[in-house]
């Protein structure tokens, strides 16, 4: 194949990555925006979502579609409740002190990861996609439409992109148009004023922490038919989500979304053409430099 089709394939792979990354990063960004804490265990909530998806789909092995739909509902709910519980038992008790929260969530990271290792085991396990037709993509060569061999994608990958867009739209509607969303935004703007107006800030925090973790789990359920569920799979999305949230400007959802698309696409393209390790080194250093020289992020306004 030539450069053109290669690039299109890389862009599609990148778009799938960007979709999942956007969900994960928006969860992290929401937690940081409203609660002003960094959740280092975010990647483990993602991992839990994938492992739960595997568990649910093996329970309903006869019906992959039903299993997938059940996983889409059950995994985020369970993970979200677990996160809310962790918030109430741990984060609330350290009074959301930024540094103590990071240390506590590092602890949570090890607890979740190692518990999964003890119960689910060290194997990587696949989940069957609910549908997976190959779609051959057309390409124009010398004025004619052709279908080059091996140039195509699957219906499931396209579904992931659409589903992530739908979920993000729903989240935006929830935050912009509902009472609960209004309460969350009010808490983000001014915690003390929100308390003065009778908003139960602590319950809002638990809900936001749960929602953020739930989004990560949802992203994992979507991606697990393409990747496999493994107890160490949380590290990579955590790092990428960090990068996205920082580049997008800490706490700004719009910036996060923009950065997720940008970085997902670049990562997809770069890892097709360059050494992935070198790409990771450069992107990590770039992010550190952004934090050092432009702490408000590339898309954020000056603080």
């Amino acid at each position, binding site marked *: 194949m030539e450069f053109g089709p290669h690039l299109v394939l890389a862009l599609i792979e990148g778009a799938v990555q960007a979709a999942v990354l956007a969900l994960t990063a928006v969860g992290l960004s929401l937690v940081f925006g409203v609660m002003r804490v960094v959740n280092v265990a975010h990647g483990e909530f993602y991992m839990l979502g994938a492992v739960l998806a595997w568990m649910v789909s093996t329970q309903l092995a006869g019906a992959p579609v039903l299993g997938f739909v059940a996983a889409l509902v059950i995994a985020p709910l369970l993970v979200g409740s677990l996160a809310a519980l962790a918030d109430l038992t741990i984060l609330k008790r350290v009074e959301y002190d930024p540094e103590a929260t990071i*240390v506590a969530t590092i602890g949570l990271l090890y607890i979740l990861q190692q518990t999964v290792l003890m119960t689910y085991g060290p194997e990587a396990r696949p989940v069957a996609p609910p549908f997976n037709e190959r779609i051959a993509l057309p390409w124009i060569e010398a004025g004619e439409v052709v279908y080059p061999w091996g140039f195509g994608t699957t219906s499931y990958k396209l579904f992931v992109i659409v589903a992530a867009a739908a979920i993000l739209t729903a989240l935006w509607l929830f935050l912009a148009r509902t009472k609960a969303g209004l309460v969350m935004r009010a808490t983000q703007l001014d915690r003390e004023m929100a308390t003065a107006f009778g908003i139960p800030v602590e319950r809002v925090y638990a809900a936001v922490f749960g929602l953020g973790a739930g989004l990560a789990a949802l992203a994992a359920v979507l991606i697990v038919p393409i990747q496999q569920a493994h107890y160490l799979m949380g590290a990579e999305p955590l790092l990428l989500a960090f990068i996205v949230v920082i580049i997008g400007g800490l706490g700004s959802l719009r910036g996060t979304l923009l950065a997720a698309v940008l970085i997902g696409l670049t990562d997809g393209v770069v890892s097709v053409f360059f050494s992935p390790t070198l790409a990771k080194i450069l992107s990590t250093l770039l992010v550190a430099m952004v934090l050092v020289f432009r702490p408000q992020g590339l898309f954020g306004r000056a603080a």
Partner: protein
Amino acid sequence: MSRIWALHGGLALLLLALHFLLPPYHHGVLARVMVLSVFAMGYNVMFGYAGLLSLGHALFFAAGMYGMGLSAQLWGWGGAAALIAGLAAALAVSAGAGLLALRTSGVQLMIVTLMFAQAGYLTVLYFGEVTRGDEGFVIAEATRAIAGLELSAEGPRYLIAWAAFSLALGLTLWLVTSPFGHVLVAIRENEERTRMLGYDTWRYKFAAFVISGGLAGAAGALYGLLFGYVGASFAAVQYSILPLLWVLLGGAGTVLGPFVGTLFMFYLIDLSSGVTTAYLIVVGVALVLLVLFARAGIMGEIRQRAARWLP
């Protein structure tokens, strides 16, 4: 003042006496713990005294280790020269990282140091032909000698570890009881006010950063030299979390805390790894419990309750 030096000198003498008393297994464990305590003491200078929380000290530990290992491996340097090369590498890396990272503070400092360490870890993997990546490499027997002492033997190894430990303990004790140390504590408590008093806080923080990184690197170089192995796992994020855990457990901002924390945690992980492969869960549980119930750590609690004079 004298009881402070008596207590810390007494600990050093006790550890020297244990060299002749301990059964082989615990003798070996204690040698490791003493070297890792140097790492923790370095971390404590920055976190416990200056109040700067880094999540990237694996970078400095690994800089020392690889500075030592590669100069021995590639150019055949002897033990002492390689050790100095490791220390120099760690000082250079921490000065560079400090210059950039100290432009930020708080949570951003944590993330920047984390990212630097991640980039360092990936760099070790990227140059796999030289560093042997995850697999690592063994330090040649010929290199592993300092001043005629064969480090592959248990006895000299313990004594070198003890010497390094005592040196680092004396150094940190001297540092934190000096005016310099008091300024660091002032910065930790209220940086704004310290600056108003006329101190150039940035220079103090930078000095703390480099001393901290240098001690971490010295520990890394010595660990590689004493136990004969250099590998990428020492640059991974786990080795940034461990010194934080040791210092939190032992007591941040106490001179003895890092050693106490490292000793406890080493045995805790050692015991639990006999029970389950998922022994890292102990690390997680300990971190959460410490943050919830004992922020001051073991020596911190002792200082609060019984001995206010502890440095």
